């Protein structure tokens, strides 16, 4: 009973907030709705028994990706009039995308309701005595090890690419050299002198 209620609650909120992502006028509000959608999707994952995936969804998407979205969107200088100006120009392209998506949805639902594709039977049986993390780890590091490492290399290349693209040498910047500072001793920087009266001292 409580699971059913929770499922419908999460599912409704996911769909409603996903719709609000598109309908919200303010891009910052859009991002907030997107975060709510992620969060409730994590709730759905929990109900499905995939606790590890749920937590990763929150940590990665809500904790990192959406924050970066929010950063970029907040920095934008939003001009609402300009946002709506291109409506007619982009209408054909938008309509095309919408029609394709709608067609795909109809095909998918049609094929599913026609039967014959027994998806449930193809899902892996749940081994109950092992936790999520163990099961995923065992698969990921044995059967899919090459794919896993290939994904790692792709991410590494992307990271190096981003650094190469944004890295630039600037001249005349005074940066702090911490090891040099730590090596400096009082006797290198100060000098104790005892000048006679009226003599002064040279620096």
């Amino acid at each position: 009973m409580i699971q059913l209620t929770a499922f419908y609650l999460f599912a409704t909120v996911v769909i409603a907030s996903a719709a609000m992502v598109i309908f919200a006028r303010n891009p910052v509000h859009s991002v907030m709705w997107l975060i709510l959608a992620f969060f409730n999707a994590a709730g759905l994952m929990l109900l499905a028994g995939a606790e590890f995936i749920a937590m990763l969804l929150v940590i990665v998407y809500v904790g990192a990706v959406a924050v970066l979205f929010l950063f970029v969107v907040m920095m934008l200088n939003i001009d609402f009039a300009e946002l709506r100006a291109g409506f007619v120009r982009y209408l054909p392209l938008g309509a095309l995308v919408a029609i394709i998506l709608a067609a795909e949805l109809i095909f998918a639902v049609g094929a599913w309701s026609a039967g014959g594709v027994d998806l449930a039977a193809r899902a892996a049986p749940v081994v109950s005595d092992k936790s999520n993390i163990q099961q995923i780890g065992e698969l990921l590091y044995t059967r899919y090890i090459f794919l896993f490492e290939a994904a790692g290399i792709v991410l590494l290349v992307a990271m190096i690419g981003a650094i190469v693209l944004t890295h630039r040498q600037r001249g005349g910047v005074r940066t702090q050299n911490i090891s040099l500072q730590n090596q400096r001793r009082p006797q290198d920087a100060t000098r104790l002198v005892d000048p006679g009266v009226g003599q002064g001292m040279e620096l």
Partner: protein
Amino acid sequence: MTETFISWGMDPTWAWGVATIAGILLIALPLMLSVAMIIYADRKIWAAIALRRGPNVVGPFGLLQSFADGLKVFLQETIIPTGANRGLFLIAPIITFTVALMAWAVIPFNSGAVLADINVGLLYILAISSLGVYGVILSGWASNSKYPFFSAMRASAQMISYEVSIGFILIGVVLFADSFNMNEIVKAQQGHGLGFVNAFGFNLLLFPLAVMFLISSLAETARAPFDLTEAESELVAGYQTEYSSMAFALFWLGEYANVLLMCTLNAVLFWGGWLPPLNIDLIPWFDIPGWVWLFGKILFFFFVFSWVKATVPRYRYDQLMRLGWKVFLPISLIWIFLISGYLMLTRYS
């Protein structure tokens, strides 16, 4: 607790619901009270180090100071700036406060005394603490004011940077404990150091991680010396500048609840949680209830937090980023290799 309610003749579903709500209240109410007292303790410790007297007027020894402050704040008018984004402006402190309370659900106070004994407890804490950024970043943006916005940018960059190295540090602990469950992590520490010390911190491989975690938790909660988010010399009061009354109080409470949570995590992950310090039966250590040990450790770490606040000058922003990305991140990454290599050789070969 559910069994107790069932034994009183309650329907199991109802007993579960009532037990959960009772558990939440049993954590949240004492937490709020201890936040009030810990603010007082913070000010007293800070004053003592600065050779001042601290709060000493309201109540005996000034003990009621926090409650007087709370009442004052409660009676004030909530001011919402005209240019502010009303909804988000009010939601931001609520997010901060709620998130600070939510993470306590998986903290074990004694063997089995935990509200939600879930397999992925540590990941849950990471997930919840990553939500805390939103309270800060939204308050800064929704205030529609320069300084809060700068502060929000700084704070979120700081929190994200240190979350990365905290994640790696936690992986080191998880590798040793062989579990993400908080209770299992505490149990794995029994007799871990030299065979009789109940703490991961006495393991030479884990001690550097413990130190880094303590420093990172200072940065994660934006306490001194990493309190750049409310550097009063440059940013007025940071992201809280435009807030008043209860909205401000929620930030305040959330901040200190977060500090307490980080102290608890230090105690639970590295210093034995609810276990007594030594695993020797000569002295009746184990007769003292676990939560006493845990609270003692939390208070010790809170003292360390205040001590640092009173003695260490504030970092500059580039120094803060350097410490996070160029010192903690590489070291914690290397340590993951070391720990997993060590465990492969000793435990799994």
